[in-house]
């Protein structure tokens, strides 16, 4: 605690001491709650109690009550085990004076009837079947305004998602007296869901089979959100939809284009482009703080497990349907974020676990709190659809001259395939032409008129050049708008008046041709030789098989090769995520990894291998259960080289040593 306090003082003095670039922690501060030794706090659910305590349920089946989690004025929290023995509870809520936990196979009310601070009555409120598959996770309950509750049921995993017992892949609605109505299906891994103030229900989905990238979808009764496995139960009499898996088209066309042909299929309101935003979306928290958590009142925060970060979402309704933009918000949390809950003081509790999946935050688990420092970051506050493009609103006035300059902006659009495969490459990417720019009088917003808006596409807006009136850059200079409908109710921009000066054709192409080839068809190159060179005479000096293991690991930690030897590597991705295999020069793994991380939209088509001399050889980006052979000549200089997966978020842990010896 003392340490945190001292750090804080240091940070504050630092801010005022020099005019350095501002970073996330100048605006949002992460406070780490200490966890008693021996407590395996792999957070599954969080609930804030009105008396200031915080309920935390864990993978090991315990519910802890944390007193004084706000740690004001140098005080410390204390932990008391309130309940125990639950089967991997992944949701906790405080409803009508009681804690409710969703276990794998049951929604349970935990009561302390004798008032000794420990639950002694475990009421089975609603029980549901399980097949016994480890991937049958259950989440909730989320309370609706009329006191009904929602729970969601994860699909099992048998090499692909599967609904092995009733209502797996569904969201269920429960009345206070325990009557269940199936609400919506098409869910794959619905760990995060919320009811907004206006009563709308949203859930987030992880990239996977039938899910090209992370996304957030509004669920209304009878909706089908995209993964067909749950449709196996639609012949049940209480199913709100009759759609069958055989009616779902598996063509690889964009989901938006398939939706009119598949009844009930609901397109997401928000896509979170994979690795450009996060890699595994989790909880949703709506900012109802009335400005006490900063300038994003009414917006949503969405956690990401793999990247240990929180994203921000602005939603709007256009033609009655939800859509909007997502932005980076805050990264640097200690473990994989699963839960976010508002504290009484309008700070945000963040509950984490990485377990067998690994995350950018290195701790196995953790509990932190995110506070607004009171300073307003210079950010894009919103992106809104306009008949001819977008309106971008800022949190602070922009430098108007710079904002009028087309060089301050870049715009692209792209989408994903809708198919049974795990994930999707970016497809149909296109650089967009900005026709006109209108900067508001007060400098608080900008209108961009853009050529060829495409419905169902993700529109990337990059504002790298924009500066505030105080000459600061944006804290985060990009956002992704999912365009399902065009708001043609708003007035159009006067294109003639605000037209931008045409650039020469040559400049326009620069850096914007995107390779849409699927990962597996990436072209071979000098550093990725996939056929044995003729000159080797049909024989490699050494052939080495490298596989992957769950938890971001290669299955071997060390490879020894002879300097100058002809090396054949067979890289086998037997994990359930995307990986590559990259050999880099000694001591350069950090540089290469970071460069891969920064490749952004271009990254996937280039297998996340940056064009750097430090890279010696690499494979393509491999789908789960795919493999590739590469051939290269080992370096002549002996030393400890590194082999690494440079897929964003992986490189710091997924490494091994390639020892080159004489």
């Amino acid at each position, binding site marked *: 605690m003392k340490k945190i306090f001292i750090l804080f003082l240091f940070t504050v003095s630092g801010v005022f001491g020099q005019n350095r670039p501002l970073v996330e922690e100048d605006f949002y501060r992460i406070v780490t709650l200490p966890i008693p030794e021996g407590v395996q706090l792999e957070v599954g659910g969080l609930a804030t109690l009105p008396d200031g305590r915080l309920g935390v349920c864990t*993978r*090991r*089946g315990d519910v802890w009550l944390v007193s004084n989690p706000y740690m004001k004025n140098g005080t410390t929290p204390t932990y008391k085990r309130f309940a*125990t*023995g*639950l*089967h*991997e509870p992944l949701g906790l809520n405080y409803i009508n004076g009681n804690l409710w936990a969703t*276990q*794998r*196979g*049951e929604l*349970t*009310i935990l009561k302390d*009837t004798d008032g000794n601070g420990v*639950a*002694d*009555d*475990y*009421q*089975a409120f609603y*029980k549901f*079947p*399980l*097949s*016994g*598959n*480890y991937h049958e996770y259950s989440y909730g309950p989320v309370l609706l305004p009329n006191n009904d509750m929602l729970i969601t049921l994860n699909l099992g995993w*048998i*090499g*692909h998602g*599967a609904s092995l017992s009733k209502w797996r892949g569904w969201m269920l609605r429960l009345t206070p007296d325990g009557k269940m109505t199936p609400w919506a299906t098409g869910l794959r891994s619905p760990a995060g869901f919320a009811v907004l103030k206006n009563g709308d229900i949203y859930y987030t989905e992880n990239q996977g089979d039938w899910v090209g990238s992370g996304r957030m979808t509004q669920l209304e009764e009878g909706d089908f959100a995209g993964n067909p496995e749950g449709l196996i139960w639609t012949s049940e009499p209480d199913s709100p939809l009759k759609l069958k898996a055989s009616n779902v088209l598996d063509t690889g066309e964009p989901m938006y284009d398939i939706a009119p042909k598949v009844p009930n299929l609901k397109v997401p309101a928000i896509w979170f482009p994979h690795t450009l935003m996060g890699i595994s979306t989790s909880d949703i928290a709506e900012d109802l703080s009335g400005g006490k958590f900063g300038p994003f009142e009414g917006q949503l925060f969405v956690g990401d497990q793999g990247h240990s970060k929180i994203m921000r979402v602005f939603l709007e309704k256009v033609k009655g349907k939800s859509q909007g933009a997502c932005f980076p918000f805050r990264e640097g949390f200690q473990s994989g974020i699963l839960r976010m809950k508002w504290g009484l003081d309008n700070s945000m509790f963040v509950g984490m676990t990485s*377990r*067998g*999946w690994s995350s950018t935050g290195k701790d196995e688990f953790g509990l932190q709190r995110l506070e607004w420092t009171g300073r307003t970051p210079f950010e894009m506050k919103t992106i809104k659809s306009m008949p001819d493009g977008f309106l971008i609103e800022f949190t602070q006035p922009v430098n108007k001259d710079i904002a009028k300059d087309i060089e301050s902006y870049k715009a692209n659009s792209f989408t994903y395939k809708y198919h049974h495969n795990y994930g999707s490459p970016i497809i149909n990417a296109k650089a967009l032409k900005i026709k006109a720019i209108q900067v508001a009088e007060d400098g608080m917003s900008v209108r961009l008129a853009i050529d060829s808006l495409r419905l169902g596409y993700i529109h990337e807006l990059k504002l790298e050049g924009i500066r505030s009136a105080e000459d600061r850059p944006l804290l985060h200079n990009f956002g992704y708008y999912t365009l399902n409908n065009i708001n043609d109710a708003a007035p159009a921009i006067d294109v003639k008046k605000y037209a931008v000066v045409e650039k020469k054709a040559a400049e326009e192409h620069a850096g914007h041709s995107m390779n849409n080839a699927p990962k597996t068809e990436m072209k071979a190159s000098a550093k990725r030789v996939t056929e044995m060179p003729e000159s080797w005479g049909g024989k*490699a000096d050494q*052939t080495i*098989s490298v*596989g992957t293991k*769950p*938890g971001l690991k290669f*299955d071997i930690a060390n490879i020894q090769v002879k300097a100058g030897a002809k090396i*054949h590597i*067979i890289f*086998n*991705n*037997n994990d359930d995520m995307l990986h590559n295999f990259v050999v880099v020069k000694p001591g350069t793994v950090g540089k290469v990894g970071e460069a891969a991380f920064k490749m952004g939209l271009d990254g996937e088509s280039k297998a996340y291998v940056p064009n750097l001399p430090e890279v010696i050889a690499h494979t393509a980006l491999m789908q789960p*259960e*795919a*493999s*590739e*052979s590469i051939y290269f000549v080992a370096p002549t200089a002996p030393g400890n080289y590194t082999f690494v997966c440079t897929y964003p978020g992986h490189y710091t842990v997924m490494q091994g040593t390639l020892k080159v010896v004489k």
Partner: protein
Amino acid sequence: MNLRLLPVFGALFLCFQVFAQDFPLNQLPTDNWDSGNWKPAESVDNPFGKKAGFTAGNKLLFSNTPGKTTSKLITADAKVRFEFLLGNNSDGVFYIQGRHGIVLSNTRATGAIIRPDGTLQLPEQNAGKAVGLWQSLEVTFSDASFGGSLIIEKVTLNGVVIHQGYVIPTTGTNEGPLAFENKSGTVAVRNVQYLKYSKEKPIKLSDLTYEMYETWDWNQQFAPKKDTPNDKGTATALTKDFGAGFNRFLLIFRGNIDVEKDGSYSLIADYAGKGSLKVDGKEVLPTESGESYRKPRAAYVQLTKGKHPFELRYNKVWWKAELGLFAAGPEIRPYALHAETSLPSPQAVGEIDITPTSQVELIRSFVMFNGKKRTHVISVGTPAGTHYTYDLNQGTPLYAWRGDFADVTEMFYQRGEPQLLRPRGVKTTFSGKPTVAILADANANMPDTLDEYKDLVFKGYSLDEAGLPGFKYQYKGAELTQKLVPSADGGITTTITASGGSNLYVKLGEAKTITMINKGFYLLESSDNDSYIQLDPKLKPVVRNASKGGQEIILPLGGSVSFTTLW
């Protein structure tokens, strides 16, 4: 396609298991023993009965006076398994090679190894059963390769591993008879079985050739890309390395198995991927429908002296290539027929346990029962050292055990894929069928299952001051509560209370045979699972044949019924 990875999923359960070897053991008849004052008998009376004696015959050895019995069988390197029964205040010793003792006792720790200086190496936990119940002990021992020592490789008492790799320094030859000694009380022994291991390697491979085909991926069933092999030739050893350079390949080895002498053998293929084995043109290990993580598969074959043609096929799929073939015999430990580098040692996993120290520990999980996963199960561990697992769906206990509580490695190691809890101590296995049922009349069968959503509705549980749960159900108009509490004598007492409802019956237990020993005291006998049931002598339960063989003991339920299971 949807089913293609199911076998993989199944294989996950196996990956923590030990290399299996299942040869029947040789029976050591009672006339192999120089009996001294031990007597051959047909049966022995339960020591709680009125009559304390035995019936003459030759099924077991029995002693109620101090003295030793020694086998004519001499062993050096062997596995020995037997069952034993102890009377009240009885103390015996089982000797390996005539001199290294293992305690069989209800006055000392059963399973303790007696060191050469007479002190005891205590078992990892106390896994002995109650007086008068048949128990089992299995010991594997061998000569240390480093000399001058006997290694007690493994001792398993009543299914609980209590010693592994214990080394006893010795002088001279490690060889001798088996022996039992009665030091006091009553000791009986039956079903003494053994395997003597030799260092012979009577099976070799010869005339080896190989063919290697590059194959398509799973979506084309790993079929070869071409009809002609990419590579072929003669081989000096069986090794995965012939496939090096290919992501997916099929490797076919052909040759002869050279057998030195007639006998029954096992051929154990251990690989990751797909495989099959033919001997004499017969598929002894057929191709599996799917692929699997590495796990051993054993074929048991009778082979005569001479050459037997074989064909081993191995498909490398998405896992690293790993290929091994072992030979074993009833009295030959498995040895490799493959090249050393073809099969790396698997990495063992450190155990995650739950240990109740000062308070009751509860944990819900999946649990295997009779080869199936039960999904809504709670396990209760007590500081008293008696624990149980209870199926909340069917309202019935599955196991109760003493000693260490629970191994939850498979729940919490990495992603916890099998999600299974395993009991660690000496356990009794219950029927797993509903404890309470409504019967049309006293002659109707107790059901094997109840509809756990429509009929038997689980309402939750309350914890008492000690933290022990009482399970609550609604069952067709009846409110039921079931509570299991450790009894003072190491058993478990079940109390069932009903309000409302009619024609309710309680199943106290199920076994192959159920015998009343005294009023209110019953002996339940099943293979490796003997137990007692004790209840108020005034109650008159009915023992009758169960619906699917065996017997069950039932009692009408009016108000409350309480009974204790002992093992």
